[in-house]
C-alpha cells in the first residue's frame, strides 16, 4: 500500500507531537477539576474510612486484589495507542476523576434518583429496576464529565477516537476499582471469604465488561465530537450521542433484570465457577465485541494517519518504506528489536528502539509542521541519521569479534 494512496484516504490529519500536561493553571477547567476533585476527595476518604472500620482485613484484601486488576488493565489501555501515548499526568488525572469525583457524586445522585423511581413507580418496581433506571444515566454522565474536563484542560491531546477511548476507559477503570471496594466490603460481607467471592463475581467473571468499556465508548463519542470539526454539527452530535447512548444502553442491560441468568439459591462451587461467568458473558460479550471492533477501527485510522504523515519522508535519509511497515505495527517493532538483540546485543536493540521512536516523532512533527525545511524537522532528521549510524556501528562491532 503506498503512502500517497493513504494520504488521500486518511483525510485531515490530527496535530500530533504536542505534549500537554494536566497542570495548566491558566485554564479555568483545570481549577474546576481541582476543586471538584478535592471536594469529592474528602467524601471519598470518609467513605473509605467507614469501609475500613466495617472490616479492616476485608478492606485491605479488597485493595490488594483490585491492584491485581488495576495494574494490567491500566497498562493494556495505556499501551493501546501505538504511536503517541497520552501524557501520563492526563491519564492519571482521568483515572483519579473516575475513582474519586465520579464515584462520590454518583453515590449521592444514585440514592436520590432511586427515591424518585420509588415514588413514581412504587417500591416493588424500584427494588427491581432502580439500578437500571438510575445508575446508567447518572454514572455515565458523571464519568463523561471527566473526559470533557480533560479535553478542556488540554485540548491538543484529544485528537482521535483512540485518545477518547483511552481517557474514557481510564475514568471507567478508576470508577470500577473504587466501586468494587464498596461492593466487596459493603455487599459481599467484607470478610475475606466474601471479598474473594466478590472478586470472582465482579472482576474475574465480569471485569472485562463493565465501566471501562462504557466510559471508553462515551470517551470516543466526545473525541468524535471535538475532532471531527470537518463534519456538520448535527452529524457530530448524532454520532457522539449514538456512542454515548450505546454505552448507557449496555450499562442499562447489565443492571436490569433482563437476560439475567445469574444463578440464585444454593449451588456447588463448581456450578458457580461455570454458571456465573456464563451469565456475565450473555450480557457482556456482545458489547465487548462492539467496543473491540470500534477500537480496532480507531487504531486502523491512526495507522492511516501515520502513513499519510510519514509519506513525505519516504525515500529520504530518515525513513524507508520497509521501516515504515515495521513502525506501523507495535508487534513488528518489538519483533525487530528482539531480532536485533539476538543478532547484535542489547545496546543495538536499544539504539533500534531509539531510532523507531525518533522516526515516529518525525511523522508526528510533520502533522503540525507543513514546511519541509522547518528547523525542527531538519533537526529530527539529523538525529535519526546519527542514531542510524550508531546502530550500524553497533551491529558491525558485534560481528567483528566473531569474525576474528
Amino acid at each position: 500500500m503506498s503512502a500517497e494512496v493513504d494520504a488521500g484516504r486518511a483525510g485531515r490529519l490530527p496535530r500530533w507531537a504536542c505534549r500537554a500536561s494536566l497542570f495548566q493553571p491558566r485554564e479555568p477547567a483545570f481549577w474546576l477539576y481541582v476543586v471538584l476533585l478535592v471536594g469529592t476527595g474528602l467524601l471519598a476518604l470518609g467513605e473509605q474510612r467507614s469501609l475500613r472500620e466495617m472490616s479492616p482485613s476485608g478492606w485491605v484484601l479488597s485493595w490488594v486484589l483490585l491492584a491485581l486488576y488495576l495494574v494490567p488493565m491500566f497498562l493494556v489501555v495505556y499501551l493501546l495507542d501505538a504511536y503517541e501515548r497520552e501524557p501520563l499526568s492526563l491519564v492519571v488525572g482521568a483515572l483519579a476523576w473516575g475513582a474519586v469525583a465520579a464515584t462520590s457524586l454518583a453515590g449521592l445522585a444514585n440514592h436520590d434518583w432511586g427515591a424518585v423511581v420509588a415514588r413514581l413507580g412504587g417500591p416493588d418496581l424500584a427494588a427491581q429496576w432502580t439500578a437500571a433506571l438510575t445508575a446508567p444515566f447518572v454514572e455515565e454522565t458523571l464519568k463523561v464529565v471527566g473526559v470533557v474536563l480533560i479535553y478542556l484542560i488540554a485540548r491538543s491531546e484529544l485528537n482521535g477516537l483512540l485518545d477518547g477511548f483511552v481517557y474514557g476507559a481510564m475514568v471507567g477503570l478508576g470508577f470500577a476499582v473504587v466501586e468494587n471496594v464498596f461492593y466487596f466490603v459493603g455487599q459481599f460481607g467484607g470478610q475475606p471469604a466474601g471479598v474473594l467471592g466478590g472478586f470472582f463475581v465482579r472482576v474475574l467473571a465480569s471485569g472485562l465488561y463493565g465501566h471501562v468499556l462504557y466510559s471508553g465508548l462515551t470517551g470516543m463519542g466526545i473525541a468524535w465530537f471535538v475532532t471531527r470539526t470537518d463534519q456538520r454539527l448535527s452529524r457530530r452530535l448524532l454520532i457522539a450521542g449514538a456512542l454515548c447512548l450505546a454505552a448507557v444502553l449496555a450499562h442499562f442491560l447489565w443492571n436490569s433484570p433482563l437476560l439475567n441468568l445469574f444463578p440464585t439459591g444454593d449451588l456447588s462451587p463448581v456450578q458457580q465457577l461455570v454458571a456465573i461467568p456464563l451469565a456475565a458473558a450473555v450480557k457482556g460479550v456482545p458489547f465487548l465485541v462492539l467496543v473491540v471492533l470500534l477500537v480496532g477501527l480507531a487504531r486502523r485510522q491512526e495507522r492511516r494517519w501515520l502513513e499519510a504523515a510519514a509519506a513525505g519522508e519516504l525515500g529520504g535519509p530518515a525513513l524507508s518504506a520497509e521501516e515504515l511497515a515495521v513502525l506501523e505495527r507495535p508487534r513488528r517493532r518489538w519483533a525487530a528489536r528482539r531480532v536485533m538483540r539476538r543478532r547484535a546485543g542489547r545496546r543495538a536493540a536499544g539504539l533500534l528502539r531509539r531510532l523507531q521512536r525518533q522516526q515516529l516523532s518525525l511523522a508526528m512533527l510533520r502533522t503540525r509542521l507543513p514546511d519541509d525545511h522547518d528547523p525542527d524537522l531538519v533537526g529530527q532528521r539529523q538525529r535519526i541519521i546519527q542514531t542510524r549510524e550508531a546502530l550500524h556501528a553497533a551491529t558491525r562491532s558485534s560481528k567483528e569479534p566473531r569474525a576474528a
Partner: protein
Amino acid sequence: MLWVGSRLVWYFHRVEERQPSRVGARPGRWRPLAGVLLVLAAVVLGGRVADSALSVPGPPVQVAAGVSVRPLSGWRSVRQGQGVLLTRGSGSLSVLPTDGGADPATLAGEYVRQVLQPNAQGLSLSQGLQTVHLGGGQVGVRFAYQGTFRGQGRATPLQGEVTAVAGPRAAAVFDAWAAPEVYEYERADVQEMVQTAEVG
C-alpha cells in the same frame, strides 16, 4: 505523602509541557465550564429536587390526643385499634400511641418484648439505639430489625425500623416494615413521616 505528591506534580510538570498560555478571558473558555457545572448540578441535585417535589405531605391524621402524623402522597391511613396504620401496599408504618412521660428507650424495649418477639422467628436487631430528633423538637430512639413474621396464615421475611418518641403528655411507637429487598425504598418516606409527626 505530601512529599510524594509534590514530586509527582513536579515530574509531570517538567516532562510534559504547559500549553501556550492564551491570554485574556475568552468566552470560549468559560462557556463549556458553565455547561459542565449545569450538567453536574442537574445530575447530582436533580434527584433531590425531584424527590422533594414528588413527596407532598397530606393533611395530618390524628392518631390520639397529642399524636398526629402526616401521610405523604401515595400512603393511605387505616385505623387499627388504638393506633393508625399507614400503608402503600409494599410497605407499612404503624403508629401506636401510649402515655406520655415515658423514656423512649424503655418504650422501644417494651415494644420488642411485647410485639416483635412474640410474632417473629429469627429476629435480629441492630446494635444500639440511634437518637433521632423530630421536627417538633422531641427526641426519640430508633433501631432496625429483620426477621420472619407470621401473619395471614404464612410466614413472611420482613425488614423494619422502630422509632419510639415520648413527649410530656403523649408518646408513640412508629414501626415501619416491608420485604427486605423493598425496605430500602420505603425508608426515605417513613423517616420523613416520622420526622414530621407531632408527639406530646
